[in-house]
């Protein structure tokens, strides 16, 4: 297994006091806790420091950790002979174990009379997984494959890491910030404990055309000044295919035209709306004829849009 330098993870010296360890952990936790931080790597960083703190805050686990000696982070190593018997696990079988599992079984060793043995009902572990999906996948529903590393317990109650692949069908209409549940797909329960759940935190990837708020979609719709002035029928893309939209005569820039029910589907069977935001745009260059017509219009019109500024 690979060694982890828990002191380095928390940024403290090996001789740090319990208070120094606690303070270092708390400072880092405030920065990287997934409920507080927006950093996409925060969760992985936090898991690392929580694992380090869980071991170093407990005097018994810290002593067991210290007796593993000094190694570089990521260095391949095996616990020294006799280490496992000294710390309450006579099995000494480290194959397939993760570094953190070495100390997991020592929790409250003295208080609880050792590792939880056979027969103790243990609920399987729950998992929180971020699931980024596209706007199209939200519209149609999709399937995702999740790779989890679950902790399972053998008949002796010894933890083992096991890779687990979970396939999930995401219903249509799942949108930003929603949390869906995969019942019973987390870690396996043991001795009658029920299996854990997986919680899927949906995040929508940015879309080339649409911006999303809840189940509503927003799109910028460029129109020419004469389309806005005279009215027009323009083709716009929706997630279910192109539709024609009537731009009323006398439309203004920034005006929103709503297409009811053309947004993302909702769990209740309805759908959000699609809002087209009119943007009046000019061609990058005018032809001679266009320029002449505009000059004619400029001469003929007496309208002053800045009257209210005077």
């Amino acid at each position, binding site marked *: 297994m690979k060694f982890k330098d828990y002191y380095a993870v928390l940024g403290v010296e090996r001789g740090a006091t319990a208070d120094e360890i606690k303070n270092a952990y*708390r400072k880092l*936790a*405030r920065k990287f*806790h*997934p*409920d507080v931080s927006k950093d996409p790597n925060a969760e992985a960083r*936090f898991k690392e420091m*929580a694992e380090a703190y869980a071991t170093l805050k407990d005097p018994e686990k810290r002593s067991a950790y210290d007796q593993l000696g000094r190694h570089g982070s990521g260095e391949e190593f095996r616990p020294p002979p006799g280490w496992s018997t000294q710390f309450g696990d006579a099995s000494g079988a480290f194959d397939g174990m993760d570094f953190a599992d070495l100390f997991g079984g020592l929790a409250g060793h003295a208080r609880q009379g050792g590792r939880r043995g056979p027969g103790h009902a243990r*609920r399987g572990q*729950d998992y929180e997984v971020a699931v980024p999906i596209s706007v199209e996948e939200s519209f149609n529903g999709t*399937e995702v494959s999740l790779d989890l590393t679950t902790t399972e317990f053998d008949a002796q109650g010894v933890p083992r890491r*096991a*890779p*687990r*692949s*979970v*396939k*999930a*069908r*995401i*219903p249509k209409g*799942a949108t*930003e*910030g*929603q*949390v*869906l*549940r*995969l*019942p019973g*797909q987390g870690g396996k329960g043991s001795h009658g404990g*029920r299996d854990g*759940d997986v*919680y*899927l935190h949906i995040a929508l990837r940015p879309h080339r055309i649409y*911006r*999303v*708020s*809840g189940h*509503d979609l*927003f799109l*910028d719709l*460029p129109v020419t000044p004469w389309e806005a002035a005279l009215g027009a029928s323009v083709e716009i893309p929706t997630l279910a295919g192109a539709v024609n939209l009537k731009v009323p005569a006398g439309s203004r820039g*920034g005006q*929103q035209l709503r297409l009811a029910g053309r947004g993302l589907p909702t*769990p209740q069977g309805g759908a959000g709306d699609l*809002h087209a*935001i009119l*943007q009046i*745009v*000019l*061609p*990058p*260059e005018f032809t001679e004829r266009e320029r002449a017509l505009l000059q004619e219009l400029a001469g003929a019109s007496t309208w002053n849009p800045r009257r209210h500024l005077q």
Partner: protein
Amino acid sequence: MTSECTDAVWPDEQRRLQLADLADLAGLSEAEVLELVDCGALTPAEGAPGQWLFGMRSITVARTARRLRADFELDPHGVALLLAFIDRIRDLQDELADLRARLPRLVPVART
């Protein structure tokens, strides 16, 4: 190891959870859930004290409460305060996302 495709389920807002079910799903004891109710961090959807029923959103709140309590070693009042802030931040983020969605981008026009 692979498994069959499982349907991800929506939190059904009409469904109600008993205290024991909520505690089980959140990984807390019933006493800890009641403590969160006491501090105002969790609000039962209906029922009289002792027979409270909780909405499905309570699962997320109670799970966040468990993480915050364990990871920051906070007392229930500290957890309740943090949950209130997290809730406010989430509301503000939703509002900000909505305003951004309504804000037109500059439309690039390709030169031909």
